[in-house]
C-alpha cells in the first residue's frame, strides 16, 4: 500500500478518534459524577471496550437497576458484534495473536470504516489503524473524563450525538450505492428497527433489522 493511502486512512480515522475521545471523556465524567469510583469507568472501558454498552450498563447501575440488569443490557447491545466479527474475520490475518487481539477491536466504527475501503489490503490496514487508534483514544478519553469529573459540561452542546450517525452514513453510502439488494434490505431493516424501538429493550431493534435481509434473496443483476 502506498504511503499516501495510509495517510488518508489515518486522516479519516483521526476524525472518528477525536469524536470518540470526547464521548469517552463524557462517559468517564458521567460515571464519576453519578457516584462511581474512578476505576469503574476506566477498567470497564479497557475490558469491555464498547461505547453504547458501557453507557447503558453504567446508566442501569446509576439508576439503581443492579449489576445483573446492567450486564444483561450491555450484552444485549453487544450481540451485534458477533455479526460484525464475522464480517471482518478475514481482515484479522492468520496468526492466533492477531485474531485474539483483533477481536477485541471490533466496534461499529472500525467495522464500518474497514468495510468502506475498496480493496482487501486497504480494508485490512483500515481495520488495524482505526481499531488500535480508537482503542487508545477512547481509553485515554475515559480516563481524562473520570479524573476531570463534571468540568466538561454537557457534550450534547457540541452536537457530537449527530456526528456518529453521520459517520456511519458516510461509511455505508458506497455499499448502498453499489448494491440495490443491500439497499432494499437496509431500508426495510432500518424501518423495522425504528418501528420496534419504543417496544423492546435497547439492542434488540438493530437485531430485528437483520430481517430486512429477506429482500436480499432476489438475484437479478444490478
Amino acid at each position, binding site marked *: 500500500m502506498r504511503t499516501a493511502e495510509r495517510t488518508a486512512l489515518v486522516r479519516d480515522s483521526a476524525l472518528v478518534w477525536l469524536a470518540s475521545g470526547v464521548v469517552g471523556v463524557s462517559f468517564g465524567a458521567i460515571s464519576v459524577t453519578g457516584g462511581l469510583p474512578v476505576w469503574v469507568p476506566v477498567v470497564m472501558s479497557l475490558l469491555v471496550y464498547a461505547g453504547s454498552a458501557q453507557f447503558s450498563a453504567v446508566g442501569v447501575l446509576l439508576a439503581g437497576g443492579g*449489576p445483573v440488569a446492567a450486564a444483561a443490557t450491555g450484552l444485549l447491545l*453487544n450481540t451485534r*458484534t458477533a455479526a460484525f*466479527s464475522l464480517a471482518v474475520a478475514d481482515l484479522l490475518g492468520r496468526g492466533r495473536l492477531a485474531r485474539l487481539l483483533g477481536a*477485541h477491536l471490533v466496534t*461499529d466504527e472500525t467495522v464500518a470504516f474497514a468495510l468502506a475501503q475498496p480493496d482487501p489490503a486497504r480494508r485490512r490496514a483500515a481495520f488495524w489503524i482505526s481499531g488500535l487508534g480508537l482503542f487508545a483514544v477512547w481509553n485515554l478519553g475515559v480516563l481524562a473524563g473520570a479524573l476531570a469529573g463534571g468540568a466538561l459540561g454537557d457534550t450534547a452542546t457540541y452536537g457530537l450525538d*449527530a456526528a456518529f450517525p453521520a459517520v456511519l452514513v458516510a461509511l455505508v453510502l458506497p455499499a448502498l450505492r453499489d448494491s440495490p439488494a443491500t439497499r432494499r434490505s437496509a431500508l426495510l431493516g432500518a424501518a*423495522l428497527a425504528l418501528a420496534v424501538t419504543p417496544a423492546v429493550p435497547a439492542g434488540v431493534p*438493530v437485531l430485528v433489522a437483520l430481517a430486512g*435481509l429477506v429482500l436480499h434473496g432476489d438475484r437479478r443483476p444490478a
Partner: protein
Amino acid sequence: MNATVAMILALAVGTYALRLVGPVLHGRVELPPRVQELLSAGAVVLLVALLATGALTEGGGFAGWARPAGVLVGAVLAWRRAPFVVVVLGAAAVTAVLRAAGVA
C-alpha cells in the same frame, strides 16, 4: 467479590466471546459464497439500522429535531461526495447551532 467487579467481568467476557465468533469460525467453517454475501450485506443492514435509530431515537423515544437535522445535513453532504471531515463536522455543527438556538 464486589458486585460491580462481577458485572464488569461478566460484560467483558460476554462481549469478548461475541467478538470471537468471527475469528473462531473463520477458516474452520467453509461458508458458501451466498452466505458470505449475506454476511457482508448483513453488516451494512446492521450499520444502517444503528444510524437510523441513533439519529432518531434516544432511550426508546424521539431524540428531538436537532440531532436528526444534523445527521440529515451530514447525509446530504456525504451523498454529494463531500470529504469525510466536512460530513462529520457539518452534522455536529448543525446540531450544535440548532441547540444553541433553542431547538431540542
